[in-house]
């Protein structure tokens, strides 16, 4: 069997391992309770950890700290073991292991914050990922303690074992991002429609409520408020929830699944877990019909300015 086939089977087994659901929900209750204790700071804290301020998840960016630091420790340990490190190598290795441990704790905080909203297979893979990372963290913490007590050989061994576990765990982390799309943008980024297209009757609008419509088979949300009609994408960038089933709170559109809140003028998330903005549409009323056109925006990577727009 090929490497790919083996990995595929391992991933599939974890995804279908329903035994993980009960402990998974217990862990989530723990995470939820921890945030409840943060009271009014719970939301800003979670937004910070999700990476709402960053525009994409903070977790994958932060994990480069422990992985990088521990990789450096592995190199330094190798030199030291071969007797080619020179003076100060052991001390340097100890420092980078310590940086890695601190970085791993911070990464875990961001990881659990993102994981708490994962569904089904991704939730199970995430739990396995967390279990492996915790094992690696424990090995490195042990290694760090040994380094402080002059047990160099055992410290290098536990460090190497920690690195092997970290590699396996990183593979699961990659599967979460690239296979399950956890943290990737699930909104519809099509540049269509480029010309104003009728999507609903004016009479379909309900003041202060989200109304789900479709344009070329893609979902869209219309919101009429104080004489203005706004239109945004109908799929939540976080995990693709149907925003047409959402509602308004303090003028923002709330995702019905995980409670992301979006500013209707800019599409920006006012609250996570979504880190990406919603696509926005220009609107106008013509003969009792609501017409929309995709808004060209420098922040929207796939938006294409039409000839019509460019010559305006």
């Amino acid at each position, binding site marked *: 069997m090929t490497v790919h086939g083996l990995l595929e089977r391992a991933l599939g087994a974890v995804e279908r391992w329903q035994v993980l659901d009960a402990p998974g929900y217990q862990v989530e209750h723990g995470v*939820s309770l921890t945030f409840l*204790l*943060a009271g009014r700071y719970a939301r800003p804290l979670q937004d910070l950890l999700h990476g709402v301020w960053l525009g994409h998840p903070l977790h994958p960016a932060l994990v480069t700290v422990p992985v990088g630091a521990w990789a450096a420790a592995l190199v330094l340990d190798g030199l030291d073991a071969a007797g080619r490190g020179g003076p100060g190598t052991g001390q340097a290795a100890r420092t980078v292991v310590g940086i890695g441990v601190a970085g791993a704790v911070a990464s875990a905080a961001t990881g659990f914050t993102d994981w708490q*909203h994962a569904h089904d297979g991704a939730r199970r893979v995430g739990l396995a990922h967390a279990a492996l990372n915790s094992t690696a963290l424990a090995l490195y913490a042990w290694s760090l303690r040994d380094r402080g007590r002059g047990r160099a050989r055992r410290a290098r061994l536990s460090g190497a074992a920690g690195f092997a576990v970290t590699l396996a765990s990183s593979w699961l982390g990659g599967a979460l991002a690239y296979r399950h799309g956890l943290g990737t943008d699930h909104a519809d980024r099509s540049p269509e429609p480029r010309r104003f297209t009728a999507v609903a009757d004016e009479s379909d609008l309900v003041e202060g409520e989200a109304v789900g419509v479709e344009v070329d088979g893609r979902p869209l949300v219309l919101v009429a408020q104080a004489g203005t009609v706004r239109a945004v994408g109908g799929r939540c960038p976080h995990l693709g929830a149907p925003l047409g*089933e959402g509602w308004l*709170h*303090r003028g923002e559109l*709330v995702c019905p*699944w995980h*409670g992301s809140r979006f500013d209707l003028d800019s599409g920006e998330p006012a609250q996570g877990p979504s880190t990406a903005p919603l696509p926005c549409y220009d609107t106008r009323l013509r003969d009792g019909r609501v017409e929309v056109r995709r808004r060209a925006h420098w922040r929207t990577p796939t938006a294409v300015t039409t000839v019509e727009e460019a010559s305006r």
Partner: protein
Amino acid sequence: MRADEVLVAHHDVLRGLLRELAGTTDAQTGQRRRLRAEFLRELEVHAQIEDELFYPAVADVSPLLSVAHAEHRQIDDQLATVMRTAPDDPEFATEVRMLEATLHHHTVEEEQRMFPQSHALGEERLQELGRRLQERQRELTRSGAMRLIVRLKRTVLRLV
């Protein structure tokens, strides 16, 4: 009663409490405290019987478990906000409306999608599940441990 009928009846209790809470004024602080405490207690019982009995039973016939779970979480978080907001605060009514919208979406999702899917279990299993749900609901409502958890949660949520 069938399992889904038991749960719809309990949804009605939860919806009724919030409707009553939404109908209060800023001056009725005692009423607001009483209603939100009652809602917290009923919600804890409801989430527990669903998590413990109903969701595992329908795991093979409904793809909506994770969504339902996420919605429970959102209701919980919004209730925490309502518990933190002083009953005479002008924002109280806005937060209750948000809680109502969150609960409404969840109950409609279950009643219109998940419960019809659960019918695949067959009448007999649903009746049996309904009996167990009612039994557990009665047990939890009377349980001293549950009362303690709810009181603890209420205290913590008001403190932070």
